């Protein structure tokens, strides 16, 4: 077998049907080697001589590879043109000739030489081609050039672009286009190629226009393009016009615009719609919308003039063509891009219109159309018989479209306000009035669509912008028994489902009903402004019962729990009568354990907290909370008890963990939800509620201890969560101080500690302190499982909150006159337990270190004496901190904590004279000052750009308070650092620079200007570039 025969064999194998991918890949590899050979142009020529089209095409393709990989010469260009002429002579398939022509274009993009005239002359003179045959080839040839030029992404010069336009387009192509025009009529193939040629040149014409400001007038041809669209409904003509309106409308002149205007505002489109498929109609609607968008301003300005009023009516009729957007009607979808900005423009010009009524009427028709167009497409459109299935992609697209419709309704509301709301309300009422047994798909869709539109408007309404008319509309909706009707439909259809489901695989009614319920719930959650009215209050209980009803069904839990929370957040006082219902619902959330999503459990607990907060009698509140805590305790205990039996079942263990976390986070939600309002002074003292305040205080401080024991139960629950291994017999997993649980426990205590007055979750600070010390012991004994978030951090932070709370207590005691006692914080003991005893664990974990020093910073800024006056503690704390500036210079969080600690310590704003003396003594006489500055500067020179500011803070505080000593400390420090540098073979820092730096620094007296000096010095010393910070 010769080489050529082998290549032919390989090509045949490549194109043979049913080849394995392995064979194809292998064959391709071998052929690619052939194509990349230096003489592949010879192989290409030989292959073109073969009888089979596939082989010939591969020959043309081999030329393409050759042109790509080799320098292009005139000789090669002439060789290809001869191949084209020869291919035409042998009447090869068009796809082979087309590939050769694109090779020709490829050559042009490299050497700007195009022998098209020679080819065309050869065809006419040597081969006696008729004009039609020649034109086909010419058009194909011309269209390949811009395609190749743009796809090769070569950057052209102005001269080159001008040359292409003046020669290839304005002479060759125009000649071909002009010569083709008389032959277009009746020749579909030539027409297609003619349009295709223009379509291919358009991107290049735009490129020349936008990048080189070269204007090319193609309006003569666009006029024919429009004619072809009007007369032949040509798709390519439509695509060209869409492209022009989408990219560069400057290409079309007034005359053609008028022609297009005449076409758009006529009944011409009807024929197009009747004869074309949905994709073509989609393109037509796109062209219409692009055209209208461009004329938005005159439309908004002159909409009441007879000329434009007629046009408006016409566009309105276009938005009302079919019943089903996305599936069959693309006009209502596309035209939203015209209507939404139009309504906004009209709104901004409302004052200038002669008749607002006409405008409102007009937009009401638009609203009507889109109300119809927002009806859901689930159901009968898809399911005609049992073989049809629901198409989710269409539904998703439809729901996206509906989001835009909602936007339109928001804008329409701005124009038609309550009239629009009332209008849609009447549509809802009409649909609701249908007898239950007569309700069918359409009726459900009408109800759902009305609720959807009303919901879109209600979303932007609030107490400040609703008027009486809105309330009246709402009254009508509820007096029509909206909720009862929906429940009736459900009950009626339960029977129907059973009947229908035997017949169909898919039951659209059920799907539709689900959407209806979801939309009703969403609507109910958006009308909070109505619940504040007397009439609204009448219905609010029914609404909540309706929501509770659907909370029991898994499918609706998410949306209904969200609605319940939203409503109780704003209307808790109106719902206090439903306390027992809320209680029952909240309890279900816990008794159903793993079947309830934690987000939903949390929402319902928060709702319950909202309602519990409205209970005036503390006894009743305590009773309810106590019940809730009992339930929680039992469920938590049961869950812990399940662990041992499922030790190898990862899924069950995960469910248990999730449930436990969910319970504790609900407890936090309850504690936060029951907090006294932040403006408690206003609430109690300025509203003559002092008795209530005293009553509550006494109850939670004294009486409850002997009644419902809420605080005791809280602590019992917290203990169970924190130390389950102590409470559950032989628990096989170490659950002590679980990190995630501890985060919640911290939040729980914090909720109480930040309360101004006693309440159900304000636990005695002494008991919290005992709890903290117990946790510290576990930490010291290394009994807590390792975790990336060490739980001890939360204990450290909790102690910080306790300190702040102690200060708050004394303030509140003064304001309220109540006897609220602050506690002995036992700072030295706690610091010993939390820091000094477990010091080896602390220094191993930067996160713990960070938390410890943040705490110390807080203590220094509140009760400095407790840390400072026990001299040994503060020295240890300071010494450990000093090391960190160089050891952890890259750890942002450690340095932030250290900076906070040191600045607080140096300024010592709450410090007494003896505290200040003590610190001075340590820094100056005990020489910690020089150590500090040495470590500080060492770390500073090695830290990152974004951490410099924290080093600056400490330097500034030192300048401020220890300027005299600082100068000396800095000199000694830089001296040491430079010695070390020399020792390590590094370049030392310029002494003059150091001198200047110290001088400039001290002059600032610690003011903000020091930051800039410090930054500059860092940039110099580290040879970094300043790109601004």
């Amino acid at each position, binding site marked *: 077998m010769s080489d050529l025969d082998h290549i032919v064999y390989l090509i045949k194998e490549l194109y043979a049907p049913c080849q394995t991918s392995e064979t194809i890949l292998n064959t391709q590899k071998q052929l690619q080697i052939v194509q990349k050979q230096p003489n592949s142009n010879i192989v290409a020529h030989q292959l073109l001589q073969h009888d089979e089209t596939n082989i010939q095409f591969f020959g043309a393709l081999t030329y393409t590879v050759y042109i790509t990989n080799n320098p292009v010469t005139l000789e090669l260009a002439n060789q290809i043109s001869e191949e084209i002429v020869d291919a035409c002579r042998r009447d090869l398939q068009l796809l082979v000739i087309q590939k050769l022509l694109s090779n020709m274009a490829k050559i042009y993009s490299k050497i700007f030489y195009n022998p098209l005239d020679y080819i065309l002359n050869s065809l006419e003179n040597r081969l006696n081609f008729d004009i039609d045959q020649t034109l086909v080839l010419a058009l194909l040839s011309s269209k390949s050039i811009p395609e190749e030029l743009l796809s090769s992404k070569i950057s052209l010069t102005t001269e080159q672009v001008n040359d292409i336009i003046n020669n290839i387009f304005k002479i060759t192509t125009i000649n071909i286009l002009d010569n083709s025009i008389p032959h277009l009529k009746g020749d579909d193939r030539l027409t297609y190629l003619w349009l295709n040629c223009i379509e291919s040149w358009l991107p290049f014409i735009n490129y020349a226009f936008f990048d080189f400001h070269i204007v090319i007038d193609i309006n003569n041809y666009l006029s024919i393009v429009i004619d072809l669209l009007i007369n032949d409904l040509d798709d390519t003509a439509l695509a060209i016009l869409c492209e022009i309106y989408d990219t560069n409308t400057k290409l079309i002149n007034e005359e053609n615009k008028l022609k297009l205007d005449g076409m758009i505002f006529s009944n011409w489109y009807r024929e197009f719609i009747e004869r074309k498929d949905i994709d073509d109609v989609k393109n037509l609607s796109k062209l219409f919308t692009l055209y209208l968008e461009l004329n938005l301003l005159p439309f908004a300005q002159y909409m009441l003039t007879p000329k434009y009023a007629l046009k408006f009516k016409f566009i309105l009729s276009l938005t009302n063509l079919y019943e089903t957007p996305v599936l069959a009607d693309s006009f209502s979808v596309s035209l939203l891009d015209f209507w939404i*900005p139009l309504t*906004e423009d009209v*709104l901004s010009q409302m004052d200038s219109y002669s008749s607002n009524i006409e405008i409102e009427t007009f937009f009401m028709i638009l609203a009507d159309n889109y109300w119809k167009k927002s009806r859901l497409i689930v159901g009968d459109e898809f399911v005609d018989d049992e073989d049809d299935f629901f198409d989710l992609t269409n539904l998703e697209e439809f729901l*996206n479209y509906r989001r835009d419709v909602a936007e339109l309704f*928001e804008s329409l509301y701005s124009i038609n306000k309550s009239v629009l709301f009332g209008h849609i309300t009447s549509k809802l009422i009409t649909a609701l009035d249908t007898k239950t047994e007569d309700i069918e798909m359409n009726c459900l869709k009408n109800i759902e669509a009305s609720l959807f539109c009303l919901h879109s408007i209600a979303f932007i309404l609030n107490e*400040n912008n609703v008027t009486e008319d809105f309330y009246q509309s709402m009254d009508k909706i509820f007096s029509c028994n909206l909720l009862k009707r929906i429940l009736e439909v459900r009950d009626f259809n339960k029977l129907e489902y059973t009947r229908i489901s035997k017949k169909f695989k898919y039951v659209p009614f059920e799907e539709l009903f689900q959407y209806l319920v979801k939309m009703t719930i969403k609507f109910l959650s958006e009308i909070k402004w109505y619940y504040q009215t007397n009439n609204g209050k009448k219905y609010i209980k029914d609404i909540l019962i309706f929501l509770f009803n659907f909370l029991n069904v898994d499918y609706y839990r*998410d949306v209904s729990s969200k609605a319940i929370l939203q409503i109780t957040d704003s209307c808790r006082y109106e719902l206090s009568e439903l306390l027992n219902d809320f209680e029952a619902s909240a309890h279900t959330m816990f008794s159903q354990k793993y079947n309830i*999503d934690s987000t939903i459990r949390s929402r319902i607990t928060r709702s319950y907290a909202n309602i519990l907060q409205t209970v005036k009698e503390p006894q009743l509140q305590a009773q309810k909370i106590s019940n809730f805590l009992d339930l929680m305790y039992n469920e938590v205990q049961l869950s812990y008890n399940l662990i041992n039996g499922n030790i190898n079942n990862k899924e069950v263990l995960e469910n248990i963990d999730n449930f436990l976390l969910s319970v504790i986070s609900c407890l936090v939600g309850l504690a936060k939800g029951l907090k006294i309002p932040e403006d408690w002074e206003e609430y109690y003292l300025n509203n003559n509620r002092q008795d209530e305040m005293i009553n509550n205080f006494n109850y939670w401080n004294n009486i409850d201890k002997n009644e419902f024991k809420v605080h005791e139960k809280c602590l019992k629950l917290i203990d169970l969560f924190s130390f389950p291994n102590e409470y559950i017999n032989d628990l096989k997993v170490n659950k002590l101080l679980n990190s995630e649980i501890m985060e919640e426990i911290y939040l729980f205590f914090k909720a109480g500690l930040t309360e101004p007055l006693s309440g159900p979750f304000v636990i005695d600070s002494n008991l919290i302190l005992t709890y903290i010390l117990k946790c510290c012991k576990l930490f010291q004994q290394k009994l807590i499982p390792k975790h*990336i978030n060490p739980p001890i951090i939360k204990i450290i932070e909790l102690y910080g909150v306790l300190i702040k709370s102690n200060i708050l207590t004394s303030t509140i005691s003064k304001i309220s006159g109540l006897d609220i006692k602050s506690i002995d914080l036992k700072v030295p003991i706690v610091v010993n337990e939390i820091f000094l005893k477990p010091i080896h664990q602390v220094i191993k974990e930067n996160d713990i270190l960070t938390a410890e020093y943040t705490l110390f910073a807080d203590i220094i800024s509140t009760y400095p004496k407790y840390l400072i006056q026990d001299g040994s503690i503060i020295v240890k704390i300071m010494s450990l901190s000093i090391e960190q500036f160089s050891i952890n210079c890259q750890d942002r969080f450690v340095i932030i904590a250290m900076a906070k600690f040191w600045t607080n310590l140096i300024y010592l704003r709450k410090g007494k004279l003896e505290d200040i003396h003590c610190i001075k003594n340590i820094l100056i006489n005990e020489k910690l000052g020089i150590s500090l500055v040495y470590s500080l500067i060492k770390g500073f020179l090695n830290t990152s750009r974004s951490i410099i500011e924290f080093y600056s803070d400490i330097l500034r505080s030192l300048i401020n308070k220890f300027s005299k000593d600082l100068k000396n400390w800095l000199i000694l420090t830089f001296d040491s650092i430079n010695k070390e540098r020399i020792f390590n073979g590094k370049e030392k820092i310029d002494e003059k620079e150091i001198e200047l730096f110290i001088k400039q620094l001290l002059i600032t007296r610690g003011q903000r200007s020091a930051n800039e000096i410090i930054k500059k010095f860092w940039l110099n010393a580290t040879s970094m570039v300043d790109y601004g*910070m």
Partner: protein
Amino acid sequence: MSRDLRTERIQQERKQWRKDHPFGFYAKPTKKSDGSLDLHNWTAGIPGKQGTIWENATYPLTISFPEDYPAKPPKIKFPPAFYHPNVYPSGTICLSILNEEQDWRPAINIKSLLLGIQELLDTPNPNSPAQEPAWKAFSKSPEEYQKKVKLQAQQYKDKV
């Protein structure tokens, strides 16, 4: 009626967005209480990419355009306490294309910004921590990180 540069650009952005926006995303100006548009403040939503732990949820954003937009970038924020290593506790996003000092260019449009943020969701930059919890979990405990992200996705589950 003459408009300032910022408003002109925002109008253009809006038009462009309507013409071409990625599926499942939304972005629109907010409404003032009288129903008129507040062009300078938008709300937007980004769907989590399918096949990632962020999927099946649309994450809400607020976009506010400063007076000197587009010379300066818009301020784009998730809700406060949004769980992601590169989102500050306030919800502000730490992303170079949103930073005037870094990669922001006036030519960047809303679509690119939102696509960039969508990309950031599943490919956080561990070198630019903006919040400690998510950053730590992402760097040290992928399991915990995934759990928390999925829990958050529940909160922003796609709505009908």
